[in-house]
């Protein structure tokens, strides 16, 4: 199971998250948490280790599940030597870092020293994390574990889309970790910088990978890897390579994009040790190594990687020596090392890939150890400033020993791993296959870099632990005797658990080369083979006899010692401003800000203008591509005109025309009239006129529904009107600027003309026979027993539709309720009922005492005559509803009309009696219950026939089956139950709407 390591890390991350959120667990001491969570990467490490024998034997494991089958994208994993090398580094160092971080975040180990620690912190103006962030540091573990998951996924990905997904995951988690100290301005800007650079690279990478996928025909990594010739010979090759290399270079901090990495050092040191030296920054290297067999071995590849890598290597080493911050120096040396790795991938020789595999592992080991040591020093003394540090070896001998071993490896001295890395690096650069120029330039650059690295390693170890503070720094602000004594007094060895991580890594650097090379040789060889694309032999012998690499290496060592002794004068050379990429970065950000400013200005921020723009664009599209010319097609036009003139004049036609004109006129009145209430009434008349037109169609069922719905619309609009601030509406009308209004009018005319044209075309060309309608007409009576064909379609033939329809209507009612209750909750005042269940809410509001003054919709007391009318109206509505339901089968009318009619009667009560009184009188009305009852009834009624020999929704006459004596024309059938259910649900939803919209919001205006 190849996904096992990832799953293990994810489980760890979830555990971390749980620790963050569960208050009781949050009290687990930080160091215990570190040990506990380290189980996740440790088990992932074991899982990969178990696969190693298989991999070194030459197998590659794959595991895939379909993800987007339509696009051929899979969630695929692939484990070979290269993935395994990275996977082991990620999980192994990950486990150590988690343990280390547990101690790093623990509160200062004893109170008696806390004064010293905080004093030191205060003295140097560097707030140290562990004094403040005790409560929240479980977040750190969560982020680290999430990062670990992403990073593992990245190196195990067997599909380029999967790879990209995890690639972005590492960028985001890196952002979160750098900005971990959220109150620190530098941390935030550093995090943004890192995200900006690596995220931009990520987008380029995606484009490049898509190119590769398009050319090779699959997003599968294996297919891409086996299609090298097609990719290399494609005309898009330079673009694709440029995009992918951009992604890799930004991620791996290659010049000129290296500037984000030193700023990322604002992250807590465990994160820097893990992400920004051992793992994440190597993602770019991994990607290039992974794609080398398919994209490499071209002049472009060679020169791009050699020049970029070589420049980065030298630049990082030069700037690094000038750093006074421990972590800054480590960051630049990391940049330098990443440059070396990139350069190696460019070289087309087996030795180069051997050097690559060795370099990756060696660097991860010593740099991880050194970062953790830097964290310990910071933790113990409160500073990372090399100018202030010194002489710590007496109080921290073990730390010094670990630092010394790791630094020797970094310096490239035998018998440590770093020595081997440098030797093979030099050997690779002297390969015969390389052009003559590079065979001279690269070794020279490498020797210089090696010397600079040695000087830095010496400075790291000696300036921290041995020399007196300030030595080796030009014009250093020498600490007073007190300050020096201060460290001697208060700094001491960290707890053993904190030393475990760096000690293990440093020890490995020594053990692997000096004693047990065989434990990694096989893995390194298969990693190098995977990256090179052909078998590579790896041997870790320290001594190959006196050869050119050894001579060069010795030169580098000698030069390095000279540089170290001269470090003070070198550091006093002023900085070269031109090399400062941060200035360019700031410039880019300023330009972007300006562009965003301009883009924002095109946004009016007014909803109706957006709408107008959308409509304009839509109409333009319809006019351009909608095939409007067909309207003027001869046949359709002739057809129309013939029918226009041939149509016999009848009363019905005249009435229809009258109804239509009335509808249009009433709508037009709603535009020009000033008062909103009158406009609403005009809308109501328009809707009723349309009901008349529909009735003349003739379709009485629809006309009935249209009439009641129109009335209900009117009621809810009036209710809403009373709740919208009046003054602003009025002002909105007055402020309407005429320019926009003219444009709107033009849009309206255009829209109207378009729709007219569409109608003309549709009417002229509509089919004159229907395939479906005759079936319904013939079968309505025999199959469903309904004479009303429309009713039969609604509740029988298309009963399922209708069931969903009333569900939607009910949901709309509940939606209105919850929206308004939510809005009310926001403005909750003490007197209003609390939000909550529908029932409890309605019950609560009905128990409120009647306010003495409020009655009727606008506050005035209504006359007894009108009140009596209210009672009668509801009674009449009830009778009407029952009749419609019972006889809707053969007559116009149905459950929906019945429900709306009843709700209108109830709405009338709200108007006549006022909200509170109506509420009290209708206490028995439970909208939620009604909706539930309605939907349950329809479900029960439609399912019941399946037990009685029919199908789901098949018509069944329960009354006849039970032999009930029922009056003629009344059947207790599935359709009657359905009508009843519709009536109940609609009544519930409609009263809910009326009730919530009618709720008096007295403090609104």
């Amino acid at each position: 199971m190849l996904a096992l390591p990832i799953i293990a890390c994810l489980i760890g991350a979830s555990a971390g998250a749980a620790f963050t959120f569960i208050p009781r667990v949050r009290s687990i001491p930080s160091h215990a948490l570190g040990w506990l969570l380290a189980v996740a990467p440790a088990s992932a490490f074991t899982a990969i280790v178990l696969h190693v024998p298989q991999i070194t034997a030459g197998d590659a494991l794959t595991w895939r599940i379909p993800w987007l089958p339509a696009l051929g994208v899979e969630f695929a994993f692939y484990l070979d030597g290269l993935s395994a090398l990275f996977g082991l580094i990620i999980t192994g160092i990950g486990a150590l870092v988690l343990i280390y971080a547990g101690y790093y975040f623990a509160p200062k180990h004893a109170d008696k020293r806390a004064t010293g620690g905080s004093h030191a912190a205060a003295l140097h103006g560097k707030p140290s994390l562990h004094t403040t962030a005790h409560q929240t540091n479980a977040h750190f573990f969560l982020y680290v574990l999430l990062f670990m998951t992403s990073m593992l996924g990245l190196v195990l990905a067997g599909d380029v889309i999967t790879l990209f997904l995890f690639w972005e995951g590492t960028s985001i988690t890196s952002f979160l970790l750098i900005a971990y100290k959220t109150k620190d301005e530098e941390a935030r800007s550093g995090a943004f910088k890192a995200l900006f650079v690596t995220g931009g690279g990520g987008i380029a990478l995606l484009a490049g990978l898509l190119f590769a996928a398009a050319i090779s025909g699959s997003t599968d990594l294996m297919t891409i890897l086996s299609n090298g010739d097609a990719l290399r010979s494609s005309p898009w090759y330079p673009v694709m390579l440029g995009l992918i290399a951009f992604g890799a270079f930004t991620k791996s901090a290659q010049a000129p994009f290296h500037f984000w990495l030193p700023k990322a050092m604002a992250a807590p040191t465990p994160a820097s040790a893990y992400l920004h030296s051992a793992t994440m920054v190597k993602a770019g290297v991994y990607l290039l190594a992974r794609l080398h067999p398919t994209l490499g071995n071209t002049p472009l590849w060679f020169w791009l990687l050699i020049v970029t890598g070589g420049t980065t290597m030298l630049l990082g080493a030069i700037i690094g020596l000038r750093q006074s911050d421990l972590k800054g120096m480590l960051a630049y040396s990391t940049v330098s090392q990443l440059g070396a790795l990139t350069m190696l991938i460019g070289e087309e020789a087996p030795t180069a890939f051997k050097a690559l595999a060795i370099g990756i592992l060696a660097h991860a080991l010593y740099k991880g150890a050194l970062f953790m040591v830097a964290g310990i020093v910071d933790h113990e003394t409160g500073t990372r400033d090399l100018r202030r540090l010194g002489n710590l070896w007496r109080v921290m001998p073990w730390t010094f020993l670990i630092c010394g071993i790791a630094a020797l490896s970094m310096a490239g001295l035998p018998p440590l791993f770093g020595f081997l890395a440098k030797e093979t690096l030099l050997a690779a650069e002297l390969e015969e296959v390389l052009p003559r120029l590079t065979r001279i330039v690269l070794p020279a650059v490498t020797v210089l870099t090696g010397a600079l690295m040695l000087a830095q390693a010496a400075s790291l170890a000696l300036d921290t632990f041995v020399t007196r503070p300030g030595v080796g720094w030009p014009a250093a602000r020498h600490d007073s005797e007190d300050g020096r004594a201060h460290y001697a007094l208060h700094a001491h060895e960290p707890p053993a658990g904190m030393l475990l991580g760096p000690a293990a890594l440093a020890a490995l650097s020594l053990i692997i080369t000096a004693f047990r090379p065989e434990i990694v040789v096989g893995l390194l060889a298969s990693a190098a083979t995977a990256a090179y694309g052909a078998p590579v032999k790896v041997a870790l012998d320290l001594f190959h006899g006196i050869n050119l690499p050894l001579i060069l290496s010795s030169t580098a060592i000698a030069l390095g010692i000279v540089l170290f002794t001269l470090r003070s004068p070198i550091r006093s050379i002023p900085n070269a401003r031109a090399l400062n990429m941060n200035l360019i970065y700031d410039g880019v950000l300023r330009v972007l800000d300006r562009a965003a400013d301009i883009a924002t200005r095109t946004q009016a921020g007014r909803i109706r203008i957006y709408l107008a723009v959308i409509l304009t664009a839509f109409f333009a599209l319809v006019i351009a591509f909608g095939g409007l010319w067909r309207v003027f097609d001869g046949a359709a036009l002739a057809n129309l005109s013939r029918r226009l003139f041939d149509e016999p004049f009848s009363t019905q036609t005249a009435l229809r025309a009258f109804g239509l004109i009335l509808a249009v006129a009433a709508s037009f009145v709603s535009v020009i009239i000033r008062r909103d209430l009158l406009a609403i009434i005009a809308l109501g008349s328009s809707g009723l006129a349309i009901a008349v037109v529909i009735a003349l169609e003739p379709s009485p069922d629809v006309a009935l529904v249209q009439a009641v719905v129109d009335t209900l619309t009117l009621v809810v609009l009036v209710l809403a009107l009373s709740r919208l601030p009046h003054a602003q509406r009025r002002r909105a009308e007055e402020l309407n600027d005429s320019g926009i209004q003219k444009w709107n009018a033009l849009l309206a005319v255009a829209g109207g003309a378009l729709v007219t044209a569409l109608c003309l075309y549709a009417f002229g060309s509509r089919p004159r026979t229907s395939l479906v309608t005759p079936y319904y007409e013939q079968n309505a009576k025999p199959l469903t027993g309904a004479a009303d064909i429309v009713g039969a379609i609604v509740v029988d033939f298309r009963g399922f539709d209708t069931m969903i329809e009333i569900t939607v209507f009910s949901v709309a009612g509940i939606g209105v309720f919850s929206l308004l209750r939510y809005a009310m909750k926001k403005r909750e005042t003490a007197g209003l009922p609390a939000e909550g269940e529908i029932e409890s809410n309605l019950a609560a509001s009905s128990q409120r005492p009647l306010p003495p003054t409020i009655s009727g919709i606008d506050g005035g007391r209504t006359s007894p005559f009108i009140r009596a009318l209210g009672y009668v109206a509801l009674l009449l509505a009830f009778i009407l509803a029952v009749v419609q339901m019972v006889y809707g089968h053969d007559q116009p009318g149905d459950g929906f009309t019945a429900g709306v009619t009843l709700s209108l009667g109830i709405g009338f009560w709200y108007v006549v009696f006022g909200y509170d009184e109506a509420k009290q009188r209708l206490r028995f009305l439970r909208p939620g219950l009604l909706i539930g009852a309605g939907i349950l009834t329809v479900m029960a009624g439609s399912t019941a026939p399946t037990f009685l020999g029919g199908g789901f929704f098949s018509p069944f006459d329960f009354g006849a089956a039970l032999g009930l004596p029922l009056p003629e024309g009344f059947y207790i059938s599935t359709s009657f139950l359905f009508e009843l259910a519709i009536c109940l649900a609609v009544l519930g939803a409609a009263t809910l709407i009326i009730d919530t919209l009618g709720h008096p919001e007295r403090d609104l205006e």
Partner: protein
Amino acid sequence: MEIIKAISIGALFGIGLYQLLRRNVIRSAIGLSIISNAINLYLLSVGAYDGVVEAYAKAVGQRSDALPQALILTAIVISLGGFAFVLALLYVIAARYRTGDSDEVKGLSH
């Protein structure tokens, strides 16, 4: 008749659009309602049969097309539900932004 109908539907649609684009949110809601009326009318008119009598089993003569009628029935109900929801949204806007003017609705307010 069909030409009158086409022009009427177009006119209703245009009026609805104009109302929709106004600043006063109540007018926008009215516009929405007019547009849905226009569309229902359109759907009803594209039925295959120009009926003389109602679509009842017992009726004699050319019945009106029952299928679009049944579909419009659903459409009317759903648009009522949607319309009520729009009104509720307008109310929420009024409560949050304290305005009935769509131009005043800017940015995120709590």
